[in-house]
């Protein structure tokens, strides 16, 4: 009994540093954010006062909030599946026995290593109307009319999505590549003997075996869809007219440009709820269908 109790105390003492850090830098800020969302923004000598649901009513009536929310949903729907599929295809490709696959792996991984700010600066010139690399192809080669990719409401968000996919796919590819290499080659041989085609092997063996990786990548992709805003700062600053603004970018605007910390807290609560729901769906629904080795 005493021995057992001592073991428990030991266990808790060992966990304490991590628990303190987690509480101080994750749990406390989250709770504080929710708390602050029910107060007004303190300004100078004016302290914050309890305003109840006022901030939430403002939020419901804020057209910019709804626009960035819709933008973010499109951004997630556009970037997550495509970057995952692309990562998977690239991993399959560089996992094969082809000449120069070392070079190819490096090429695919490079975007991940580069800082997003640097990447965004490269892409900014890539999208430049007239002489940008993209226009040199679409106008110079395909003969299409010139288009202001980042400066039009119809293409600004899509242009940012392409950058995100390009940046993320290489990162996710590494996880898929590692998982693919963990699959014993003898499984492919067994499937071949059993009469399975390449496609059947892919569908019935490889993809199910990669489910844990897919789940992991999916969690990351969802988080990133709401977290990556560096390229917006560099490339469009949310413009034109909020066409490419995402939720987190708007939170930054409200918090650190407008200095309206209470409303920023309210927006953050929405973000927390969204991410919480995504995590819940992933772990309750997808987890069940996943085989862990």
């Amino acid at each position, binding site marked *: 009994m005493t021995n057992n109790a001592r073991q428990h105390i030991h266990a808790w003492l060992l966990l304490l540093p991590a628990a303190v850090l987690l509480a101080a830098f994750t749990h406390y800020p989250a709770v504080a954010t929710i708390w602050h969302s029910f107060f007004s923004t303190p300004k*100078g000598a004016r302290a914050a006062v309890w305003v109840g649901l006022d901030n939430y009513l403002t939020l419901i009536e804020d057209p910019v909030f709804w626009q960035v929310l819709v933008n973010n949903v499109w951004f997630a729907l556009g970037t997550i599946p495509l970057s995952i599929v692309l990562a998977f295809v690239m991993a399959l490709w560089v996992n094969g026995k082809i000449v120069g696959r070392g070079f190819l792996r490096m090429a695919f991984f490079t975007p991940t290593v580069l800082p997003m700010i640097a990447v965004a600066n490269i892409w900014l010139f890539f999208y430049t109307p*007239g002489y940008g690399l993209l226009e040199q192809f679409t106008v110079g080669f395909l*003969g299409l009319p010139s288009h*202001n990719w980042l400066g039009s409401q119809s293409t600004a968000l899509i242009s940012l999505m392409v950058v995100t996919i390009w940046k993320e796919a290489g990162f996710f590819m590494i996880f898929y590549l590692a998982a693919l290499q963990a699959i014993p080659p003898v499984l492919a041989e067994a499937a071949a003997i059993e009469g399975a085609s390449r496609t059947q092997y892919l569908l019935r063996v490889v993809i199910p075996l990669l489910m844990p990786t897919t789940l992991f990548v999916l969690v990351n992709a969802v988080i990133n869809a709401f977290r990556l805003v560096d390229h917006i700062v560099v490339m469009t600053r949310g413009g*034109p007219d909020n066409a490419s603004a995402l939720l987190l970018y708007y939170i930054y605007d409200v918090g650190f*440009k407008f*200095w309206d910390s209470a409303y920023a807290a309210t927006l953050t609560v929405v973000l927390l709820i969204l991410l919480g729901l995504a995590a819940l769906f992933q772990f309750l629904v997808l987890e069940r269908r996943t085989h862990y080795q």
Partner: protein
Amino acid sequence: MLTRQLTQWMRHVFTATLISLCAALPNVVQAQATEVSFFYPVAVGGPITKLIDAFAADFEKENPTIKIKPIYSGTYQESIVKALTAMKSGEPPVLSVLLSTDMFTLIDEEAIVDWTSLAKTPEEQQWLKSFYPAFMENSQTGGKTWGIPFQRSTIVMYWNKELFKEAGLDPNKAPANWTEMLNYAKKLTRRDAAGNVTQWGVQIPSSGFPYWLFQGLTTPNNVVLMNKEGNKTYFDHPNVIEALQYWVDLSQKHKVMAPGVIEWGTTPRDFFERKVAIMWTTTGNLTNVKNNAKFDFGVAMLPASKRAGSPTGGGNFYLFKKSTPAQQQAALKFVKWITSPERAAQWGIDTGYVAVRPDAFDTLTMRKYAAGFPPAAVARDQLQYSVAELSTHENQRVTKALNDGLQAALTGTKKPDQAMKDAQREAERILRPYRK
């Protein structure tokens, strides 16, 4: 055994304490000197940090009791975030260069003290009056001076003389008014056989902070965007709408400017690549254009409409409230020193920013420089027509309302008058509490 370990441990502790004490000693000595921490908005090291470091060192040599500690704090936006969050956690810098337009925000946050009450001697009072009035517009409110101009700029027009010649225009004469600029731009816009534009006539960037460039149109159209108290805007004034209509028409009606929102960052590059014949950008780009343009170029004042005019821009010195009287006096001394005519002139020559006081242009160094490189004087000549950059209470929220409206009009999703009425309504909503 245990005793020996214990003694050894004690010895370690003792040595460590001694070392840290010794390390702390210089600080103790210098605590008698007044330290002035100083946020300066530079993202990465380079020529500008060297200049600032040299200024600080020279000042310290002349004033051994004062220690200037420059902290390079990133972009303007990053700097104000750092300064205000540092203040909220109790340790703001003593001094900081931040956007002149952040004045109302800093006042509302009760972060800064005004220079007027600090400048007690007649000589100091005189110093406060030594700057260009155009720069002081963004530095004063309610009869007090809150910011000292330092890293200031304005918008000017750059043109490619070679392309002017090709188009049959006088390469040494810039368009002087809106009609001329439109006519020139029509001649400077070139299309290939398929009708695709290969060279645009004019380019006014509209990403990020279009309101500032828009002031380059509203000012000549004889209208200001806000009152001096920073609690009322005039976005729906007919002259404002007329100015926006002119801007929108450049691309949508006359097709002499690229459609949609034009990126600020790539505009100089567009100019170097000869994709555009006339560009509007900051005087801060002067050195950049001088080094990178492979052709003869000219710099001129922005074209006039009902009058000449351009907004000022850039950063001011602010003094933070949470500092000791000694630090405030030291900071005043430093700011006075660094804005003296000779240093203001040198700073302008080295960086391309506009020297902040008229007597700086009378110095020998500046006269020599301007004689060899006339574009350097254009910004100065324009200052007499310049107005304050848009700055109000809740500044960034109000400017965002205007920015969104401008971009909506430029991309064609809203008509100019509708866009400006919407922006004005939003600004009214935000500013109404500040008029009580």
